[in-house]
């Protein structure tokens, strides 16, 4: 238990920290490096974006032309207006085409980049050590390759585009304005400039509101999932009302947070409209004044009124775009954080591929401690010769499971080394290692598929016949025949449709099918009935084909059958030898055994 807590605390600190410190710009640069697709054809897309943006000033330009040139005389100059309108219409179509091409290119580039990023992130999560996988909550690892990527995608295709279009719109509008009248341009900017300082403040408010919504939404999900996952216990203890109250509180909290966020957005959103109206009024007042002195034409003044509308939408959406940008950067930062967490237990480059066959394992002065924690294993040295059956016993927290994780290289020792056939585990190619050494954990996870598919996970090339044979060899035909659809029985999500014991049977069959040279069982039959357990134990020993079997068990029947027993206490091997010898000498093992026999014999 202490080990578990240490594990969490120590590792939780690691990966997240590094990533949080990265600046937005660095994040962007680093992210682009990891997904080169983003940059492919970026120049062309940018040119198209500029062309598409030009479409926005066609109307003010046309209005100005019509008033100043078309309507100058007593009668409108219809041919001029006609030509001008046709020309502008053509320009509109061209900019629309540019918009289409830009969108298509943008989507293709960003989605390709993001698919790559998802894949890389996913793979890296699997490469992380079990320590990191356990400490980062699983759900949050999932959102690294789903929600976080979606946020980047949203921003790149909507927000990012908005930024480009909005910036272009503001720039082009300003240029056209400046050409028409620098005084009015200054006036317009004087009206809008304060907004540029106020908007980031609004955005912080809005962001805080949304953060609260996200947190409360998390509460709702947790409360609802408790009422679903815990449905049996809730009914058994008649605590429906209590659970309902908890759900209600969470739902109300979420609604309150949503309403609050909406109020902030609702109150800040129309501010831009108000500012725009002040600018419009100002332009009318000052424009007329300027017109009286002849420094502006009426067409240009009216065009200004149209140009001001170009300022509204970029500024109106600015808070939302800023939000999206912030979320996207944060999401990106989190994914990069995962990708940057070193796969501390990594597949060695040019690793050794070991030949199959009888396997020998030795621990040489192995010590281990969780990052930032006290040592949980001290100076463990032991040789496991080929074709032996080893039982590992000891109380909870004595270091048994740590020993197992080091043996299967789920973690690397802090000191000393673990050798397999004389080669340091850290130098063995992963594919070779996983082929030779397989561990069956206590809670053997099952995938939402059929029995057959789950067993085949151990060896994808296995035929149905081979799977049946494996089950027969394990003595499980009787159980299989009792299932409604035999091998085709679906196991449900995480194997929910099966009992705990049945899930363990499946996990064992899966490992048995994989046929490793060393099979490590970590309390893998704790929920199985004794008769089946004994049958399985015999089949798994597989001494005839030279397999080594290491079992961690608190049922000491396993120890009795083993060639050698390793007794762990406080992270050290305190006793070792065959059961018959150990049980004779006073010590930890004799005590454990006495308590076990009193529990199993009548």
């Amino acid at each position: 238990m202490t080990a578990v807590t240490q594990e969490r605390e120590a590792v939780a600190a690691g990966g997240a920290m590094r990533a949080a410190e990265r600046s937005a710009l660095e994040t962007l640069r680093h992210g682009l490096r990891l997904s080169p697709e983003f940059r492919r054809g970026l120049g062309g897309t940018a040119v198209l974006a500029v062309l598409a943006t030009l479409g926005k000033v066609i109307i003010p330009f046309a209005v100005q032309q019509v008033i100043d040139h078309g309507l100058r005389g007593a009668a409108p100059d219809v041919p001029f207006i006609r030509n001008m309108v046709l020309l502008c219409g053509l320009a509109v179509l061209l900019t629309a085409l540019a918009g289409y091409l830009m969108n298509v290119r943008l989507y293709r580039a960003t989605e390709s980049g993001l698919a790559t990023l998802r894949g890389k992130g996913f793979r890296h999560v699997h490469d992380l050590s079990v320590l990191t996988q356990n400490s980062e909550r699983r759900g949050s690892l999932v959102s690294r390759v789903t929600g976080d990527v979606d946020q980047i995608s949203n921003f790149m295709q909507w927000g990012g585009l908005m930024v480009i279009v909005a910036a272009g719109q503001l720039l082009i509008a300003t240029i056209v304005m400046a050409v028409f009248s620098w005084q009015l341009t200054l006036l317009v900017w004087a009206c809008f400039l304060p907004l540029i300082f106020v908007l980031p403040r609004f955005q912080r408010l809005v962001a805080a509101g949304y953060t609260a919504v996200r947190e409360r939404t998390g509460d709702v999900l947790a409360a609802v999932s408790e009422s679903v996952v815990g449905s049996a216990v809730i009914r058994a203890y008649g605590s429906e009302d209590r659970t309902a109250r908890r759900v209600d509180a969470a739902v109300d909290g979420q609604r309150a947070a949503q309403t609050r966020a909406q109020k902030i957005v609702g109150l800040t959103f129309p501010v831009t409209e108000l500012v725009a109206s002040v600018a419009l009024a100002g332009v009318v007042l000052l424009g007329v004044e300027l017109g009286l002195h002849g420094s502006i034409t009426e067409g240009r003044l009216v065009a200004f009124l149209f140009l001001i509308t170009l300022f509204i939408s970029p500024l109106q959406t600015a808070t939302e775009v800023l939000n999206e940008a912030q979320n996207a950067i944060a999401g990106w930062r989190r994914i990069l954080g995962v990708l940057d967490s070193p796969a501390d237990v990594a597949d060695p480059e040019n690793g050794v591929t070991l030949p199959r066959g009888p396997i020998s394992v030795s621990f040489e002065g192995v010590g281990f401690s969780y990052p930032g924690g006290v040592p949980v294993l001290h100076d463990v040295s032991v040789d496991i010769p080929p074709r032996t059956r080893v039982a590992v016993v000891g109380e909870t927290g004595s270091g048994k499971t740590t020993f197992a994780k080091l043996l299967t290289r789920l973690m690397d020792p802090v000191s000393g080394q673990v050798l397999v056939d004389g080669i340091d585990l850290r130098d063995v190619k992963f594919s070779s290692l996983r082929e030779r050494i397989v561990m069956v954990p206590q809670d053997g996870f099952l995938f939402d598929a059929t029995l057959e598919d789950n067993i085949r996970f151990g060896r994808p090339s296995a035929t149905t016949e081979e799977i049946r044979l494996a089950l027969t060899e394990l003595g499980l035909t009787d159980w299989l025949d009792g299932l409604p659809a035999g091998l085709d029985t679906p196991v449900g999500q995480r194997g929910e449709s099966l009992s705990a014991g049945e899930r363990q049977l499946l996990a064992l069959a899966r490992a048995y099918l994989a046929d490793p040279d060393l099979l490590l069982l970590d309390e893998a039959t704790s929920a199985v009935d004794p008769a089946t357990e004994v049958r399985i134990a015999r089949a798994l020993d597989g001494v005839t084909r030279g397999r080594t079997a290491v079992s961690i068990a608190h049922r000491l029947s396993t120890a009795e059958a083993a060639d050698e027993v390793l007794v762990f206490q406080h992270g050290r091997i305190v006793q070792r030898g065959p059961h018959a010898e150990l049980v004779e000498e006073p010590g930890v093992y004799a005590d454990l055994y006495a308590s076990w026999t009193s529990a199993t014999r009548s």
Partner: protein
Amino acid sequence: MSSKVSTAVMRQGLKVIGVAIRTEPRVFTAAVLSSGLYGVMTVASSWALGRATEHVVLPAFREGRTSAGALTTAALLIIGVAVLKALGIMGRRILAGIMQYRMQAASRRAVTRQYLRLPLAWHHRHPTGQLLSNASSDAEAAWGPLAPLPMAVGVIVMLVTAAVAILVTDPVLAIVGFLIFPAIAVLNLIYQRKLSPLATRAQQLRAEVSEIAHESFDGALVVKTLGREDAETARFQAKADELRDANIAVGRVRGLFDPMLEALPTLGVLAVLLVGALRLQSGGMVAGELIEIAYLFTLLAFPIRALGWVLAELPRSVVGWNRVQDVLDASGSMEYGTARLDGHGPAEIEMSGVTYGYDPEAPVLRDVGFGVTPGRTVAVVGPTGSGKSTLTQLLARLIDPDRGAVRVDGTDLREAARGAVSEVVALVPQQTFLFDDSVRGNIALDRDTHDRSTDEQVWAALRLAQADGFVAALPEGLDTRVGERGATLSGGQRQRIALARALVREPRLLILDDATSSVDPQVEKRILYGLREGSARSTVIVVAYRMATIALADEVVYLEHGAVADHGTHEELLARCEGYRNLVTAYEREEAERAAIESDEEVVA
């Protein structure tokens, strides 16, 4: 997608909206009024601008002079209209939000209430993930159209006002407007129709990508120990690539329609300029009016799309609504009678002819019958998968038998009043479940509010469950929060807290379903002795493999393939039931065989 189907979807979607309007009529009315204000003021702002142009700007340029009064009026008019418009926007946004969130919250509450009400058998048929999304994303989708709805209503007001305004100003220009705006609306409708199946597909794929990630990371240890990282990555990447292609398809449609929707009103304004010039020539209108209409066109171009947003949300809304409704309509809820089970002392149990199957074709239990006299401890023994856990669920009335009956003190559990069974029976299941609450909250549950179960009682239960030691050592003792699903505790600790939760109730029937499997043997032994001492007031049913547990039992029910193969004392069963003998003496026989083999080897040697 035939138009027939979409019409049906449309009609259903409008019905869903109707439900919301009936539920929140006042908020809806206020939101629509705000939005109407916004619509009218949008048109008014173009009128203000046109008026300023005609009466202030153009005369000033023509005549070279202006009056301060006219200028001030124009400026105030522009600002005044904008203030009203801003108020309309605020009201529309905030009220639409309030309405949407209220409906969502109501759906979430109703759905979860239903989860808590529906029997466990219903839960068995529905995957956890699906139930979670019913309460989260489906409830959200169902009321999705409520956000843009007032805006859409406002836009209709806006369009009518604009139509009137243009007609009044110039009937010829109105023709241009009547051509352009329906065209935008129709184009947007086509857009949303093309987009929505693609968007739905992308959404679906997003969920699938997430499912694979969830499952794969949950099984990370298995993936790692079997070296299947590459295969898993390939499985994930294939789905991620599908999602990429679906998103690109969405992008292509967006890329096509968005620029068209922008271009259309722009072309409209150009047409206004051209036609307007002709009208000016013929003296049908003045320049200010031309500007007013052109400005109106630029203002209307964007809001008119809101009509499309509501329509776009409708299919998603209908799907979400139907899923939520399926949960709400689910029947087969547990029926309760009126009988109380408030006898005193240990309960009497009787199971007769009980048959149960998760899949009725393949029953897990077949014609199970046995009785237990009050105060006895009965061990339920049987091979893995023989139906022991199902039996315990029947005894606690988490499920009802397909045939036969379970009786406590002679009362069929189906006739017991709501809550009566859980007052008397406490089940500790094989899979420990803890709430994200304090240790005290997990043990006392609701009792602190009505039964005034004191800390002393909680500690007594913890002592009996051999959990007082580690709980006392926790940083905040009973107030320590155990985290989601008890994540901060070890498996054995979680089991002992779950045991204390049952013991604190002093149940008349205590059911332990292999409830100490993660507890060290020594600790388990102490628990079992404690139970034997203290269980005088309970009838105990215990699912077990261990001899020590079986030895504590007065009698044994031996199950094989879902049927009672034998029932009697341990000694009787040992003597007459081969399957039982094989099961419980497996370790000893194995030891004996080994000893025999070893002695043979010695002889040979």
